[in-house]
């Protein structure tokens, strides 16, 4: 029997460790950097700037009063709901169009130029026009998120499904795979890492553009609250919303990395 290799990579441990190695220098470094930055910010605002300017202690104090409001929770629900819905629709559409582009050369000829042009365009430039077309309402936000996700997913799916290893195709043909089996049984799974990367990028763009719509069209959501709180000179409350958006964005990124490891454990980057 051949030897079984589990491919566990040895990582040299940092030297200063406490509590069973949970606290390492590598993990401590960003905490220290953050603390230093917060202290500088706090001291500077207190020493030099007017009272309404946001400062770390003010933001922390503003958290309870901000999240105790109905406005906060309806905003969070509206923004996150629209983003998740848009990502779902945009991903499915992007995967279907992308796999068609990747597997049917003629279809790619028709689509590729325009999909890639739109993909390269900063979509935020289209936000005002789409608001005019769809109206000053939540639907505009959903449309923007769908497009923001659809474009990168279509592009990465097309690239991923086009570049399948020839040997996989030979195996498929040899064992009797039909076109449908090759699309959904070989091309799509082998392109999973590409597709997940596309969805991840779509999420980031979708969040950005959703916030832009909320601000420009006064659609209820976290972006609108950031804007109104800031206009009311309540900078601390405004930054509580920004903090929540940051947590959401980082959380999504972490989840997507896990998602890729789970879907494509063979793929190491």
């Amino acid at each position: 029997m051949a030897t079984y290799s589990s491919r566990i990579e040895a990582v040299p441990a940092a030297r200063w460790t406490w509590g069973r190695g949970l606290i390492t220098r590598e993990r401590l470094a960003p905490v220290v950097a953050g603390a230093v930055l917060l202290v500088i910010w706090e001291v500077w605002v207190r020493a030099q700037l007017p009272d309404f300017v946001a400062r770390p202690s003010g933001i922390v104090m503003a958290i309870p009063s901000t999240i105790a409001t109905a406005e906060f929770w309806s905003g969070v629900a509206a923004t996150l709901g629209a983003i998740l819905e848009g990502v779902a629709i945009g991903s499915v559409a992007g995967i279907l169009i992308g796999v068609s582009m990747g597997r049917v050369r003629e279809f790619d000829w028709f689509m590729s130029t325009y999909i890639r042009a739109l993909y390269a365009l900063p979509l935020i430039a289209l936000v005002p026009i789409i608001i005019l077309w769809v109206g000053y309402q939540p639907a505009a936000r959903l449309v923007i998120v769908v497009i923001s996700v659809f474009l990168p997913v279509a592009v990465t799916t097309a690239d991923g499904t086009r570049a399948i290893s020839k040997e996989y195709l030979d195996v498929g043909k040899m064992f009797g795979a039909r076109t449908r089996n090759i699309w959904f049984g070989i091309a799509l799974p082998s392109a999973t890492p590409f597709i997940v990367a596309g969805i991840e990028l779509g999420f980031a763009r979708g969040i950005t553009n959703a916030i832009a719509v909320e601000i420009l069209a006064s659609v209820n959501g976290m972006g609108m609250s950031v804007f109104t709180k800031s206009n009311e000179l309540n900078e601390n409350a405004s930054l509580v919303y920004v903090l929540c958006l940051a947590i959401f964005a980082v959380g999504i990124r972490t989840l997507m990395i896990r998602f890729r490891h789970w879907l494509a454990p063979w793929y190491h980057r």
Partner: protein
Amino acid sequence: MNDSGAERLVVENAGLRYGQLDVLADISLSVGISEIVSIVGPSGCGKTTLLRCVGGLNQLNYGEIRIDGQRVEKPLPIVSMVFQHFGLFPWKNLWSNIAYGLKLRHAPKEEIDRRVADAIDLVGLKGFEKSYPHQLSGGMQQRAGLARALVMEPKLLLMDEPFSAIDAQTREQLQFELLRIWDRRPTAMIFVTHAIDEAVLMGDRVIVLAGRPAHVRAVRKVDLPRPRDRSVVSSPAFINLREQVWHDLFDQPGANGARIQ
């Protein structure tokens, strides 16, 4: 060459070109019902291309390939192939990789379970059903590649340099295991390799393919007893044949020595 019952595969005057480049010229050969034919030749001589034509993955420009009298124009269900780089799907575990062909043919679930378990047992992979290819060594991956081909119970097995991407010790182990498996289930087989030892060890006949375009330069009958084990490798008959095939391959045409037996 005749088509009368005893031949599983008949290749007649096969020729193929890529654009202006002639790859195969006028190749004729046959493989018996339970015969192993080795095809040996220098790298890039076209032996894999010939095998792919037999598998229905490439098309001839002229000539004809028949398996059990049926013309090969696309992959036939009675033919299986083992690939040089294994070709296992990394997103499927070993069990699912091996069950792939049967699932595509919509075999009943109980039958798939039974045949896959048999094949896994045959190649010695019991206990690794749930493992993914990237967790296994090359030798074990190719065992799975072999099981995936055998589970289809093919009438013709095509081996495309199956052990060339595997380390030398494991390769030797797998060669004898393949012979053991074949003794249990004799089937027609084409074994493409660039290793002369391997060609002689496996084959009932060795076909030497060479030249540009590739043509059959020599056919050597291998009169070694079966079942073959390690003792065969040191026998005078084996060493003698290996020398003959070496000369078939590397002597310039027109130099001394017979070309064809």
